[in-house]
């Protein structure tokens, strides 16, 4: 019988009773054939690979991660709580050393959900990796964590959640934003003033195949990880770089995905996108599981796989090599950004569009330029659906002055915000201002 050389817990939760809509890519059928493949291959008969059910994320799990307006229940359904709970279960298995690694093979995904959420963006409501990371830090204290986002779309949500957090290294490898949703993820997006070089973007050209992708991994991601020395590596594991994916333009294979995980050696992987449900997911998921468990994956192959037809053009490979030559600099020698300042605050003003629900959010963020801590953060946000709300974040190392400023803003009675939420990482307080 086969035996895992590194034990793997798989949280397989296909949510067979939930869809965004009956013909939406995020529908009940999505993981059906993956399950058929797992069953037929006897994945869970392999010694050291076990199957687990998800937990369910509670309000506090979500409120310590996101500013949810108008409320948690209006932002997420049970499906989102359970999907995030699947990621939490993965973390729990690994942190409690029940399994060496874990893979949350759950839906719906989360990596387009930003710090502030008003609704669904890019099929995502809450950021399930971020909810998991905050669950870990709540229980196990401050950790250095690397999140490597291997979904074909830029992980703009996760990037936003950790934009100012130097403890979290976020690396996204994706199809160039000039050619794909959400249109972001360029190398110069490099982290906020307090976390410069902790956000790394690797935009790959369309039709990148195994060689080009793994080149970026080996020449950019792995050297950066070797220097950052994270306590945990998380793979935000989208499967839409696959050559058969219907909504992207890459040429990655199941072998490529397996090799990626073999090299990256994530402690935890969390499923993100990937909508070639018959042609890719059964093989990619099998490849990822076998690679994470340290089993032989060399015979995992799609029936229609032809290396010669999928190989990238020489020019594409040349472009990737050129690009990667510069990208390690964004970590080792990041360029100080052009941060706008008003008084003692760094200011960001943005408009964010929620494609699934047609919500347009307007946001103004003020981060205190504090020399004692990372600085209190105040986010004013309104949308086409709701008038102005306020989110207040106190960082884990919050100084007394910033703490005072944060709570003053939270307890005011003379402002016009319809909802105010505090996210106090230092004292672990996550709540809304009681209604007037």
């Amino acid at each position, binding site marked *: *019988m*086969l035996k895992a050389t590194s034990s793997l817990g798989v949280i397989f939760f296909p949510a067979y009773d939930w869809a965004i809509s*009956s013909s939406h890519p995020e529908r009940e059928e999505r993981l059906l054939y993956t399950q058929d493949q797992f069953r037929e291959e006897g994945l869970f*008969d392999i010694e050291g690979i076990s199957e687990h059910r998800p937990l369910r994320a509670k309000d506090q799990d979500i409120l310590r991660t996101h500013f949810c307006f108008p409320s948690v229940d209006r932002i997420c359904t*049970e499906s989102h709580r359970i999907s995030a709970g699947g990621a939490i279960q993965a973390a729990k298995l690994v942190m409690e050393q029940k399994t060496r690694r874990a893979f949350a093979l759950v839906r719906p995904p989360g990596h387009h959900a930003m710090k502030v959420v008003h609704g669904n963006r890019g099929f995502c409501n809450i950021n399930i990796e971020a909810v998991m990371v905050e669950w870990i830090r709540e229980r196990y204290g401050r950790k250095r964590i690397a999140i490597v986002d291997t979904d074909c779309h830029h992980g703009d949500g996760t990037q936003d959640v950790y934009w100012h957090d130097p403890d979290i290294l976020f690396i996204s490898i994706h199809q160039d934003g000039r050619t794909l949703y959400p249109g972001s993820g360029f190398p110069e997006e490099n982290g906020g003033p307090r976390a410069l070089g902790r956000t790394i973007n690797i935009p790959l050209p369309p039709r990148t195949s195994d060689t080009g992708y793994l080149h970026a991994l080996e020449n950019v991601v792995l050297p950066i990880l070797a220097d950052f020395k994270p306590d945990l590596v998380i793979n935000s594991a989208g499967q839409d770089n696959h050559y058969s994916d219907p909504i992207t333009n890459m040429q990655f294979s199941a072998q490529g995905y397996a090799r990626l995980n073999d090299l990256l050696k994530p402690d935890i992987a969390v499923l993100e996108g990937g909508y070639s449900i018959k042609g890719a997911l059964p093989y990619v998921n099998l490849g990822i599981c076998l690679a994470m468990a340290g089993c032989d994956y060399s015979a995992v192959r799609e*029936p229609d796989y032809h290396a010669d037809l999928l190989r990238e053009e020489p020019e594409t490979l040349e472009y990737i090599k050129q690009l990667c030559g510069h990208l390690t600099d964004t970590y080792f020698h990041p360029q100080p950004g052009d941060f706008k300042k008003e008084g003692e605050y760094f200011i960001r003003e943005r408009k964010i569009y929620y494609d699934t629900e047609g919500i347009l959010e307007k946001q103004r963020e003020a981060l205190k330029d504090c020399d004692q801590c990372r600085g209190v953060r105040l986010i004013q946000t309104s949308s086409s659906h709701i008038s102005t709300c306020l989110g207040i974040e106190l960082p884990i190392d919050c100084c007394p002055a910033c703490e005072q400023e944060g709570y003053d803003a939270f307890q005011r009675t003379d402002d016009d915000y319809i909802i105010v939420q505090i996210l106090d990482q230092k004292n672990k307080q996550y709540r809304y201002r009681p209604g007037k």
Partner: protein
Amino acid sequence: MRIGIDIGGTHTDSVLIDGTRLIAAAKAPTNHDNLLESINQVLHIVLAGQDATRVETLNLSTTLSTNAIVTGNTDPVGVLVAGGPGIAVDTYRIGDHFHIIPGSLDHIGTETAPLDETILKEAIDACLTQGVKFFAVAAKFSPRNPASENRMREQLGERADFISTGHLVSGQLNFGRRIHTAYYNSAVWKTFRSFSTALAASLRGLTLQAEVNILKADGGTMPLTRALETPVQSIFSGPAASVMGIMATTQATSDLIMLDIGGTTTDIALFAGGQPLLEREGIAINNHPTLVRAIHVESIGIGGDSLLSVGKSGVRTGPHRLGPCLANGGPAATLMDACNVLGLAQLGDVSLSHDGLKALAADYGMDSRQLASEAVDAAVNAIAAKIEALIALVNSKPVYTIHEILEERDISPRKIIVIGGPASVFKGVLEDRLGMDVEVPTLYGVVNAIGAALTRTTSHLTLTADTAKGKVSAPMLGVFRSIPRSYSLDEAVEEARNLLANDLAQAGVSLPADEIQITQADSFNMVDGSYTSGRNIRVVAQVQPAVIARLNSDSAVDIQMAATR
């Protein structure tokens, strides 16, 4: 009237039951070299003075196949498998005649590489040259498309004495388990057939005209004619007989735990709402997981004869057994001796237990009562830990819908039913340790045979339909046919019910339609591009294990022992 026979490792038990009344019970030593002799002995006793022609049903739980496998007394099997990409087929290598035939299907049953006819021929010739007469054929994803398995079967043709075909052995997906199930089925086929021929002759001699059923590991029976096709289903039916015996002798309607305490081991089973829980996929044979459905029974190395020892961490009970307890002339102090010392039991020569424990205790500067009490605690704690782990496992089993996560009730047993030799001895200590009601049914001595007698036929069926491809399949029945695009979930459920009922009818079993349970009925909208191309329908139907009658509580009879040879 019904007869139940349970052939166990040590004893062969039999009962004769009329309606809900126990008429006779018998025990004989099991003669492993000649099971028929043991069967005849008990039958003679229970049928003494009875009109044998009134017996309609004889249900038999036999260790025949299990023993053949455990002792390696099986026939060589030519195993022909077609795997293709994925986990290497060689992982599932079993037996001395394992041949991999190139050719593959994908997860929806589309052929992605043709079966290599040349290599198939060579493999068959190699097997036949070496005198192999029994075969197992299996292809990855054969429940989705049986063509390659059928082709291998066809090529073997009349040259094989018996062929087990993967998709007919189980319609469930799991290639490795399918290979091993088919292998064992062929490996025990000849042994089982010889036995059944001899059994039939022997029953005729007793003027028995009863229909004969064989007990399965899932607690149900199968008609003997079916057992001749799938003898592998008869393995490990012993624990299942105990479980069914509990159902037949107690008011088992709630969540509860069954303990069967034997000499060497204790078996633990769990009931949810009075229904015994099954293994998720199937039981393992010789460490090879199979698709043989079975009641989930956990075994722990603690029994009446478990050896007592004292180590750094204190007094230990089990898992070893050297022989019977001192009180029964055994070589070393056991759990039963500890029970004797504590006054929980009065088995055999109690003074031998006292002397033995005194000597052991003295070696470690202990008092013999203290040692005995710690030994019993150790045993009960180990059993309790195993029970708690089993409940936790069942309550955390994977589920795939939001509905199940939110609505499914946890199993929380409040009652334990204990059977087996030392059952009554442990009643009090188990009650104290687990804080649950402990019941020891009065008929425990032959409860297995009662379970065998009163259980009914079980069956199950997996049906899959793909309206985009226009196909429906029920692999175990060899049903693969075309359907119109309009084929619905309701039609699929109806078809699954009918197929299962008709198949049972063909085997001579008639069941009311409402006894067929639908355990899965899902219909997935399939989308190609951005339009709906069809529906993927999955239905699982089953007849779950159940007893046809509950025994009258006042129908106790003496168990007659067969004369020892």
